[in-house]
């Protein structure tokens, strides 16, 4: 039999030969001093590499690594869910305050586009109908009064919003805001070296 070539010797040591090839190689090695010597050289190398000790680190890398992480990720994980809920609640509150302000603003300026906004009780009633709750109630919002300065003449554009449409808009706005903030809280800027 011919001598084992470099590939066979290496694959034999790496245990990458199939059973038949391994048996053939072992049979040859048993009778060939030259191939045994080459194998021994490789085995010595394997052993030297395996015994190479780890080098101790002189410095703890933690502080340096953490200092280089993006600041955007400072929000603790446990806070994210509440943050998401709070964002949604904030949206609803802002809309609840914003709509009366807008309505007052519009009433003071006759030339503003006419937008008929539904009452909160109307929106709440739609919400109740949506959930099919079987009870009646009265929903009253506090009144807001604002002083608006005289505004220039604007084109007349009549728009009428039904309570159901307003409810849908509120829900859509809240959902979009929530999704946007949730993804923002989860996202990490890409840093490629």
């Amino acid at each position: 039999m011919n001598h084992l070539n470099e590939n066979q010797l290496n694959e034999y040591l790496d245990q990458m030969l199939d059973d038949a090839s391994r048996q053939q190689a072992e049979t040859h090695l048993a009778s060939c001093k030259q191939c045994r010597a080459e194998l021994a050289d490789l085995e010595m190398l394997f052993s030297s590499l395996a015994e190479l000790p780890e080098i101790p680190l002189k410095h703890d890398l933690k502080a340096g690594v953490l200092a280089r992480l993006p600041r955007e990720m400072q929000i603790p994980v446990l806070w994210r869910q509440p943050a998401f809920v709070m964002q949604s609640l904030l949206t609803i509150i802002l809309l609840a305050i914003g709509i009366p302000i807008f309505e007052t603003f519009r009433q003071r300026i006759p030339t503003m586009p006419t937008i008929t906004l539904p009452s909160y009780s109307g929106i709440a009633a739609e919400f109740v109908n949506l959930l099919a709750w079987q009870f009646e109630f009265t929903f009253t919002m506090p009144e807001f009064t604002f002083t608006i300065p005289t505004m220039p003449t604007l084109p007349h554009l009549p728009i009428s919003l039904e309570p159901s449409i307003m409810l849908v808009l509120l829900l859509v706005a809240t959902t979009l805001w929530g999704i946007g903030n949730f993804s923002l809280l989860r996202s990490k800027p890409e840093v490629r070296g």
Partner: protein
Amino acid sequence: MNIANDRSLTKLAAQGDQNAFGELVQLHQSAVFNVAYRILGNQQDAEDAAQEAFVRAYNAFKSFDTHRPIRPWLKKIVTNLCLNRIKAHRPTLSLENGLPPPKEPKPGPEAQTAKRERDAQVRAAILSLPPRYRAAIELRHFQDLSYEEIAETLEKPLSTVKSDLFRARKMLAERLKETAPTQPPPNSKDRI
């Protein structure tokens, strides 16, 4: 290393928990640093590379399956990082500034001294290899990857990887033989 703890830390870190990531750094920094040290051959460069590898890992968590162990992934990142640094001709030293401090504070008995000298020769021999050969040795012998995994990591054909690895071993064996031993190798007596 507690595997369950490692996985839970990995999951938290993947969600952006920097405290959990800090703990992962402490758990794996030595292993990651040693990969860099074997490839770059210099303590300072290796620390820099290890630190950079952790930052990259943090920013690449989206691409990592947190059900898998994190250490091989970290080693892969630092390996590629070091190879890129070598390609970009960043300075690496060849251990000529002195070997890293031994774990023992004082020189031990003769056998220990001989072992340290031998380890230094092995490290120097690895560093004398061309980078592609060095990478093959690192991935096969120190990270225990299969030929296919090495090919995937280095993005090279399997045949090239095998050729590089076998040539690297041949060169290493020859260099160690030249520098070496007055003492017999560990398994050198007739085996068969």
